[in-house]
């Protein structure tokens, strides 16, 4: 009996090693299925606040860059207002009420935690349920798309970045209106791939990729430029590489897009699938 205890004591570290390694690998697999354990979530209060404090310090260094983008955006918006005002006197008669029916609400938010170097990148933003953020709402910034909300805390939310192996966004080629999926297989935070555009889709280098409007992103948001489009021998679909307009490593000011028609669309999809 004593020998047995001695044996266990001597090799306890091997058993402990196997048990802990098993637990870790379980955690890795679960997170790959996007079922992250709640206690490890960065939207949890402590780490969220810490990152918020860190971000306040960091923001000072990026102020000039942020000012520049905001000024550019202001200019674009002012130009649009000017255009609308110029057009209005002629078109007032023909505008129907339903045109003004609002579908999207944009809520501004700041990124307080971000990464681009992992395989599955997740962000944290400083807006949560009390600000009106909903699960699966989409997130954009002024120059491109960012991801969608996966977890909502009371003051912070987690965003699954488009630089995540589980992310799928429906996009289209603006010139031809062919629909494909935007996925991230490369290692670079600037390059993504568009899948499932058929061989006859006529994609060329330099085409603009925009959102299709199918994945709760408004239609026509700019995503990136096609940098490579080729068809492998024997394949029926294009192999397309696109360079993003926005640099996700520098994302700071984002907008959460709440789709007011989401429930209606989802319940219709659900009913159709049930049949």
């Amino acid at each position, binding site marked *: 009996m004593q020998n047995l205890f001695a044996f266990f004591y001597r090799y306890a570290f091997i058993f402990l090693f196997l048990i802990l390694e098993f*637990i870790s690998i379980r955690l890795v697999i679960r997170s790959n299925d996007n079922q992250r354990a709640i206690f490890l979530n960065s939207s949890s209060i402590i780490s969220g606040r810490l990152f918020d404090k860190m971000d306040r310090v960091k923001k000072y260094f990026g102020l000039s860059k942020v000012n520049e983008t905001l000024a550019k955006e202001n200019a674009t918006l002012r130009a649009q207002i000017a255009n609308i005002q110029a057009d209005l006197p002629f078109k007032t008669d023909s505008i129907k009420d339903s045109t003004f029916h609002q579908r999207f609400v944009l809520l501004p938010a700041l990124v307080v935690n971000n990464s681009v170097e992992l395989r599955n990148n997740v962000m944290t933003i400083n807006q949560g349920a009390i600000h009106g953020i909903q699960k699966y709402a989409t997130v954009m910034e002024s120059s491109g798309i960012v991801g969608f909300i996966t977890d909502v805390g009371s003051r912070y939310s987690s965003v699954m970045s488009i630089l995540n192996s589980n992310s799928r966004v429906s996009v289209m080629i603006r010139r031809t209106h062919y629909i494909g999926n935007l996925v991230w297989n490369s290692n670079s935070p600037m390059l993504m791939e568009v899948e499932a555009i058929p061989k006859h889709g006529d994609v060329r280098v330099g085409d603009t990729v925009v959102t299709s409007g199918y994945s709760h992103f408004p239609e026509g948001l700019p995503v990136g430029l096609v940098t490579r489009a080729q068809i492998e021998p024997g394949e029926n679909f294009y192999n397309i590489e696109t360079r993003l307009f926005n640099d996700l490593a520098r994302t700071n000011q984002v907008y959460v897009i709440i789709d007011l028609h989401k429930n209606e669309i989802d319940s219709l999809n659900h009913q159709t699938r049930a049949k």
Partner: protein
Amino acid sequence: MNSIWLKQCTRFLLLFAFQVLVLKQVHLNVGSFNYISLIIIPLWCMLLPVNTPRWLMVLLGFVFGILVDWFYDSPGVHASAGTFLGFARPFIMSYMEPKGGYNRIPIPSKFHLGINWFVTYASVCLLTYLVFYFSMEVFTPAYLGTIFLKTIFSFVLSILLMLLYMFIFDPE
């Protein structure tokens, strides 16, 4: 006994804060070149006292890994690498045992065993950690090239950081 563990705790807080508050914020990617993660926290595991029981090494490796994971949003990735390093350290140390053995040496540091010994020791430990870490992160053997490149580039910068730490603090 207590004072040496008090030192370990202080060192842990220092390295941990540096890792999650400073190094995590550093993105050293240039365009499509995205292979560098700065990792210094395994240094803590390497500098644990020589006479730490093996089971405690494994447990502490797991604990520091899971704490780093908490801030890195990567459940299990650092934890599995830390556990593995904790498991492997006694074997690495016995393989690299100096002539006089580890008698009267509290921790395997540059101060006690010299710079040459320490660089070899730290390199082996860090490579063990990084290979395991990046394999766990990518999690498919299809990306062997990526794992290799990430390990090499991260290794070079991380080992420099660790040596810098050793020269600044020179822990006894």
